[in-house]
């Protein structure tokens, strides 16, 4: 399933997750970025950066490598589902859109 990665949320192939992190009071942007990087790593993914202009929203993509998709998905869901700083997360799926 071709799903996003990269700052424009686009990358060939691979899984990806959108994650909304709780930006704790007073926590700076830098701190949030570091937290996102650490969380992505823990989930076995790569943090490609903030999604557009949405504060606290990050895109994690599957790293290149031989790991089976199911293993990646299980690990990601387990980590993202349990982490207290994650307010919301969602695996990115392809949307069907038609020109009018």
């Amino acid at each position, binding site marked *: 399933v*071709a*799903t*996003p990665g*990269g*700052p*424009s*949320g*686009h990358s060939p192939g691979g899984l*990806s997750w*959108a994650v909304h992190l709780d930006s704790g009071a007073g926590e700076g942007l830098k701190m949030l970025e570091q937290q996102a990087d650490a969380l992505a790593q823990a989930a076995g993914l790569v943090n490609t*950066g*903030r*999604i*557009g*202009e*949405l504060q606290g*929203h990050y*895109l994690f993509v599957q790293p290149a490598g031989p790991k089976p998709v199911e293993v990646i998905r299980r690990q990601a869901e387990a980590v993202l589902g349990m982490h207290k700083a994650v307010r*919301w997360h*969602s695996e*990115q*799926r*392809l*949307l*069907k*859109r*038609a*020109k*009018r």
Partner: protein
Amino acid sequence: SLHFNDPKYPQQWHLNNRRSPGRDINVTGVWERNVTGQGVTVVVVDDGVEHTIQDIAPNYSPEGSYDLNSNDPDPMPHPDEENGNHHGTRCAGEIAAVPNNSFCAVGVAYGSRIAGIRVLDGPLTDSMEAVAFNKHYQINDIYSCSWGPDDDGKTVDGPHQLGKAALQHGVIAGRKGFGSIFVVASGNGGQHNDNCNYDGYANSIYTVTIGAVDEEGRMPFYAEECASMLAVTFSGGDKMLRSIVTTDWDLQKGTGCTEGHTGTSAAAPLAAGMIALMLQVRPCLTWRDVQHIIVFTATQYEDRRADWVTNEAGFSHSHQHGFGLLNAWRLVNAAKIWTSVPYLASYASPMLRENKAIPLSPHSLEVLWNVSRTDLEMSGLKTLEHVAVTVSITHPRRGSLELKLFCPSGMMSLIGTPRTMDSDPNGFNAWTFSTVRCWGERARGTYRLVVRDVGDEVAPAGLLQQWQLTLYGSTWSPVDIRDRQRLLESAMSGKYLRDDFTLPCPPGLKIPEEDGYTITPNTLKTLVLVGCFTVFWTVYYMLEVYLSQRSVASRLACRSGPCHWRQRSRKSREEGTELESVPLCNGKDPDSVETEREGPLTSSLLGPDLLGPGDWDLSPGRSAQNCLCQHLPPDLLQGKEEQIC
């Protein structure tokens, strides 16, 4: 009084209809007053914009553009086998095609800037949509989106979590805080009796939903009905009627001009162009001001099948045409004198659990919710704009359901229509319908939701699990609304459309675009290449220096006895092909009288490799500079010394 040399302008009936006067967007009057969209940027979010084409290039805005499919700043469309990626370029031409360039056509806002965000030509996800909706949102004022979920009469879809968040962020922080204007096409599912309330982009409160009418003002075969449609404008109709003439791409079979642009895709950009004209005369209009001006100025017109109903606030609405036809003259004159509406107020009922069976037609399930004065005290909400209903319903065939909402005034909105194609067994799971038909009416009172099962099941099969009512509006009173209506009518003479009349307009907020600098793959590849190249040559030169040092060292070792220079073949010496780096110095003591060596001047000038053996040796501390100077004949040195040394 305006004349354009663009060859297809006479065929652009939507701009100025000579065949059926009045059947156009009534824009020439504002053009005559130099309202052409100056200073406004419209971005077409689509499959790309061929910005190199003559009709677009002068108005193109690279700083507002991006390509999310290839992740680079250039939204040029990529030809594909179906010759299909001309859609964005056509929409762009409708908005800002350059006039008087003897090429093709003229855009509604031909003085505006046009940008492109290429996002439809490849896999599209929620996060990509979110990026698109806020891309360069301090540069792009209006986002024109002529696309949406499938119009197949059985899809229920819209922006997902991130797309919704981006739309909301756009109206809050976009356009210096006045709010991005999102214009969407209502959909082409007419033949599948689709309804744009099943499309979350069309029924979002943050978007301006635009439908289409043909040159005769009728709802074309492809158009959809919808209670959340704000207005309509022109597009193509059936074969007998003319379509929209606009710029086209010139790739593949494209000629740079087309007379066949149609569908609600063609209507939305015309609306976006008219909104650009409004923003030229009043840049500080908020996203809600724009919606209000559309509601106040759209014109109802004769169409028996349109089922016009006038609501309590005096606005006429039709499920087919919204509040009516957009009229550029009315929109711009209203914008010129418009003062901002009060802040957005909202009220949400609790989640109302019902778990009631939905009876078969002709019976229906009716549930009520009363909104009291106390309920509204907190928000100050007095009159309505959008009314939204979020429902969860189970039913084995979703297309059998019909939903109607009655506002306290009794105004009925058909928010969910039966769809014969929709056999989805999953019903509705917290799907939000909305209506604009109660715009301007009082918010207080009892709201009624009526659900019917029009299927041919033998027994009731549907269950209304729960629902929630959400009201959006402002502190405006009905009197305020009537006053504003009167004020606008007084402006329609055009008396305020003069340069010397301008209401104060706040400059807006400086909101930094937090675009993290993103290196595009192309840039990355270039950097990697340059890097490799640099590393390679560095290694090569280091090797060369090392080897030459070594050879020098070996020469030094020869100082004690005669050294045997490597016999260089006469041939290679003559040809000078033999590459050898030798030090610059002969090391002789500068004081010693230097017997001038005879020999061709060139030899010494050509530098070291042509000098004979023994000429050189390396005494440390000798600067190459002295050495070199000693080899130049004295007459050459006159005055040269300084230069050369």
